[in-house]
């Protein structure tokens, strides 16, 4: 089996996780900027974090032969402070030319507030100006549906090309909205919130799977860095072919991410899935 992990917060994971992922067939990992579990108090905290995402973590991953890519932003949980958010926005262009930077993400909304909307729009503007890919986080639980609709409206009004934007953490009540708008959709496999492997495969079976990817979104919370290969196993149990599984967990993310010319995957050691 070979797969791409398109959403993992590796700065929160151990080296054992790198070993397990590569052993399971991971050939590239992508790490969006996110909330550290506490609010950072100055722009310098973000500058250090961006260095970690663009210099330190790629080096750590390289020890396992794993290409590492990142997305940059200030996440919506810290966007309520407009002054800090503007400071962080101003340093993002310094890092955009680093070779492992895919684009702007994971931006989006958390509580669907006016300030979050404002900072989301500013990020989109930067992505459009620099012609970069966009990764969007949709809110949690009861806030997801409203937030997804707001996000889709903003992206439409900003003139973003839908095929260059992936909207993440879709569930049964949002996946159709995202795909119908022409965007890519990400299904996040979490033990409790978001989607289980069985529900993720239900969505794959029901919707055009060409613009869908699966991710573990593993971080410092309740999450599993092997959620994608475990879901591949579940697809086998459901009777999906090796070709279909490879298309979903390798081919699809490869197609979206290859829109950034610097994206590459490791030679994988195994045979076919």
């Amino acid at each position: 089996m070979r797969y791409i992990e398109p959403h993992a917060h590796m700065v929160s994971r151990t080296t054992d996780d790198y070993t397990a992922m590569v052993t399971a067939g991971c050939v590239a990992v992508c790490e969006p900027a996110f909330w550290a579990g506490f609010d950072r108090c100055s722009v310098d905290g973000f500058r250090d974090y961006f260095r970690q995402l663009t210099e330190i973590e790629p080096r750590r991953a390289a020890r396992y032969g794993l290409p590492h890519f990142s997305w940059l932003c200030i996440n919506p949980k810290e966007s309520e402070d407009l002054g800090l958010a503007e400071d962080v926005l101003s340093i993002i262009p310094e890092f955009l030319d680093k070779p492992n930077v895919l684009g702007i993400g994971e931006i989006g909304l958390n509580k669907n507030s006016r300030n979050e909307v404002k900072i989301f729009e500013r990020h989109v503007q930067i992505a459009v100006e620099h012609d970069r890919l966009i990764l969007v986080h949709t809110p949690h639980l009861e806030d997801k549906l409203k937030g997804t609709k707001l996000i889709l409206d903003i992206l439409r009004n900003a003139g973003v090309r839908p095929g260059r934007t992936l909207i993440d953490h879709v569930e049964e009540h949002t996946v159709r909205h995202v795909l119908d708008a022409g965007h890519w959709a990400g299904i996040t496999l979490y033990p409790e919130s978001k989607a289980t492997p069985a529900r993720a495969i239900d969505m794959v079976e029901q919707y055009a799977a060409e613009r869908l990817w699966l991710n573990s979104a593993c971080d410092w919370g309740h999450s599993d860095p092997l959620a994608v290969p475990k879901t591949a196993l579940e697809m086998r149990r459901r009777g999906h072919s090796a070709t279909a599984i490879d298309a979903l967990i390798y081919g699809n993310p490869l197609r979206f991410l290859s829109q950034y010319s610097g994206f590459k995957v490791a030679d994988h050691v195994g045979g076919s899935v």
Partner: protein
Amino acid sequence: MTTPKEPWRQRDALTDLYYMEARARLLDVAAFLDRVDRAPGTDDHRLRSLRAALSFLNDGKADRTRRILESWSDPSVAPADSADTKGATGAWPKL
């Protein structure tokens, strides 16, 4: 579009694969409701919305998962004035 091969499209095959897990989860939900009903106090919005969602399970219509998630969602349209909290509870608090 990925197309699962037979026989997993067949109802009996899917039942073989998932029945025991679904049975265990349904018993867990029942036990949870028994547990909270035995305890003093009143239902908050999470319990109210969970109880209300049970009616979707046996209404014989499709897309139960989508409809349950929609029923727990914030139905408002305009952005909130501010984010007074970072977290979400699982169901819209005004339910």
